[in-house]
């Protein structure tokens, strides 16, 4: 069994409206040195071993469903 932590983030070129709002709130709280906030998704996936290369399978999963390559980047960490 592999435990995989997947991080999906908006591409840097896209405006992250949510992140912008949170940053403004942080400024209002006095954290005026916060320079940028980007909000993404964190997904945990548990995968049973079926002989297939886990990285290959996770790339397929991330490309097809967990992220939209048009607007998002993904990365993941495989832990046992």
């Amino acid at each position, binding site marked *: 069994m592999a435990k995989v932590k997947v991080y999906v983030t*908006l591409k840097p*070129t*896209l*405006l992250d*409206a*949510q992140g912008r*709002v949170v940053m403004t709130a942080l400024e209002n709280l006095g954290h005026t040195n916060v320079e940028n906030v980007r909000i993404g998704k964190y997904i945990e996936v548990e995968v049973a071993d079926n002989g297939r290369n886990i990285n290959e399978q996770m790339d397929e999963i991330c490309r097809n*469903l*967990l992220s*939209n390559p*048009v*607007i998002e980047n993904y990365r993941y960490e495989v832990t046992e």
Partner: protein
Amino acid sequence: MKFGVVVFPGSNCDQDAYYAVRDVLKQPVEYIWHQDNDLKGSDCVILPGGFSYGDYLRTGAVARFSPVMEAVQQHAAKGGYVIGICNGFQILCEAHLLPGALVANTGLKFICKYVNLRPENLNTPWTHKCNEGQALRIPIAHQGGNYTCDPETLQQIEDNGQVILRYCDERGVVSAEANPNGSLNNIAGIINEKGNVAGMMPHPERAVEKILGSDDGVAILRSVIEWAG
């Protein structure tokens, strides 16, 4: 022309689309359940608005893998007509039947109001019944209608005349003020390269009778019927 209206779990404009086709356009129409892989002989498939699969993960991301989408892909590949409205547009982008993607409105709010739309390319199956310079009054109702794509794709769809509708003011002037959601170049609707697949965020099926505020949406739906002959 026979229409098919796809029903996903969470679709909520399926009945409006069905009504517009049957009662206003007087064309045969059937519902198509998302688990079916048969389009029941539809010439034009409508992917209606709503919140398919609760908008989980991303709008349209899960609906894209419904069994019916396999049939829609094949229909589109053979040149069959497909139009995605609102959530349907999001699904078509996720399915790569249309270029680009739809992200959260820049204001992050759900916007439900009438907007004005300028038809851009009148030589398409979806716009040829529209008039040059006309501002169509059609409602929007979405939180993720902000059209985006990479600069190369934008250049390509603009050069190919694939942008069919832009947000404008009531005189037909495209401006930043008339852009409700932050869409690139005020884009409200696009087509694929062949023109047989269209997506638009505004709801033409909600603007088919004057008594309900506007019947400007009829021009879009009537266009495809007459285009196909």
